[in-house]
């Protein structure tokens, strides 16, 4: 089985957001970059599938500057069981939106016949939740989004996904695109020897021209960043007598906030 996993590098969620200038712009200089946490579930799922079947090949694909993603590809992907990597590094893709990235990924993925293409459900920087499903459409593949459970059969799969008030059971033939999130598995940590060995695994670096595609135009553009709307002051209720505090809170929610 040939599996592809698409991973993105994102700022750590502890990163401070600084907005500077008259048109608030994002100051990204202090960001600590990590593998998108959801993509770790996709990587782990690919490795588990390969281990279970006892054979297969896992290709990691990322769109990003090679010098910045190198460590992530090695430590978080190749050292935990992926076999090779494709890095699409093209300066013209800076600021590309989801659909542009999906087009580049689709072009990279078309170069081989993958049975499964795994994504994270969303990237924690743009919080878009789009790229995986868009790429499925561009590849003409079915997708199952946000799977919580996966069972592989010969040339087919059954996945479960949570919906409001229940679970959908989805059957699909392969090739298929799956988007992965928490609850699916427990991502493993790389061991030191495996990190050393990962340095030997092949990493192919190319740009859009190398993929034989034009740099796709973005259809969305961030005009400005703004701070989140301020929340009002917190009304602290005297907690000296906890039961009285609880009654006062219930009263305030009922009479002042009129929520209950």
């Amino acid at each position, binding site marked *: 089985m040939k599996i592809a996993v698409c991973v993105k590098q994102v700022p750590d969620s502890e990163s401070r957001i600084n907005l500077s200038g008259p048109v608030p712009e994002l100051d990204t200089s202090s960001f600590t970059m990590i593998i998108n946490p959801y993509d770790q579930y996709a990587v782990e799922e690919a490795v588990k599938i390969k281990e279970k079947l006892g054979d297969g090949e896992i290709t990691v694909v990322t769109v990003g500057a090679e010098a910045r993603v190198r460590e992530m590809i090695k430590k978080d992907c190749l050292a935990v069981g992926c076999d090779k990597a494709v890095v699409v590094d093209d300066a013209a893709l800076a600021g590309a939106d989801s*659909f542009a990235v999906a087009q580049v990924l689709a072009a990279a993925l078309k170069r081989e016949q993958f049975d499964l293409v795994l994504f994270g459900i969303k990237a924690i920087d743009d*919080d878009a939740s789009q790229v995986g499903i868009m790429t499925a459409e561009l590849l003409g593949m079915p997708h199952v*989004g946000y799977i919580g459970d996966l069972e592989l059969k010969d040339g087919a799969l059954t996945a479960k996904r949570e919906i*409001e008030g229940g679970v959908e*059971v*989805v*059957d699909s033939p392969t090739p298929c695109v799956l988007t992965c999130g928490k609850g699916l598995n427990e991502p493993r940590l790389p061991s030191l020897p495996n990190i050393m060995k990962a340095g030997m695994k092949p990493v192919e670096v190319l740009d859009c021209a190398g993929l034989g595609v034009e740099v796709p135009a973005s259809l969305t553009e961030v005009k400005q960043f703004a701070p*989140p709307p301020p929340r009002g002051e917190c009304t602290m209720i005297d907690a000296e007598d906890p039961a009285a505090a609880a009654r006062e*809170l219930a009263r305030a929610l009922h009479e002042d906030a009129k929520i209950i």
Partner: protein
Amino acid sequence: MPNIAVFIEQRAGQIKKVAWQMLSEARKLTDAHGGEVWGVHLHAASCNVNEDAGKHGAHKVFTAEAAEFDRYDSELWTQAMAAFINEHKPDVVLVGSTAMGKDLAPRLAARLKAACVSDAVGLSWDGGLVVRRPVFAGKCYADVATRGDVAVVGIRPNAFALAETGGAAEAATFSPGLDAGAAKAKVSAVETAAAGQISLTEAEVVVSGGRGIKGPENYAMIEKLAEAFGAASGASRAIVDAGWVDYSHQVGQTGKTVAPNLYVACGISGAIQHLAGMSSSKCIVAINKDAAAPIFKVADYGIAGDVFEVLPALTEAVQEIKKG
């Protein structure tokens, strides 16, 4: 002047409330800038959305009926919505950011080669659509402009208020042009959750517990308070990872995003990743024995007290009020 199409989602014949919220907000835009609001509804059996859609702002409601619409299918829904958009050419298509909408919108946008923006909390028109949405886990907002003939925009449930300022909507039908042969991934079954369980993402009130509840046996205390409020019960990641409650309860960056009218955080510190999932709630209550806990920075009401002392009394007080 924009014509705005609003996807009126149904599951098993039940309409999602976000549909009415989107119609209400869309109508505000067209009242100010011209254009019409169109409801678009796919259904399997005779439906009756016209009246409600009109009331909430739709000028017209377009429906398509097909037996296939009794169960969600990404391919067929995409076909139907694409058929509608190609025929009627709206400028903007609004889709609720629900389990279904998050699945449909990117596929639809990619098929139409259209701009796609997800999880919007604000819409404005400035010669073109400008969408406001939280990014970086809600630590900042981005104003996004779109290009092209049509934009597909996902709307966060509860971001917009309901307004009943519309009138009667004109009824129309459209042909969804289904090609069932193209659908490869199929929903073979829907397992419904236990009766009486309120879905976290749709609840009006959410009561969540964190590590402050000390052990799995005390989650019942959270559930009791939730029951008194008629609320869904949530959790921080800490207690999900500890195995005290199922992952389906987790609120936050790697869990669910909720925006209820009332969010009650009990024994939760308020880490940025937790806030990512709940900070757009209308009213936030925090109960935490550490008065310096960051959760109080986003809270509207706070009690710096012990959950074991406060929650039982709060449960009783809420029950009293609910009894009337």
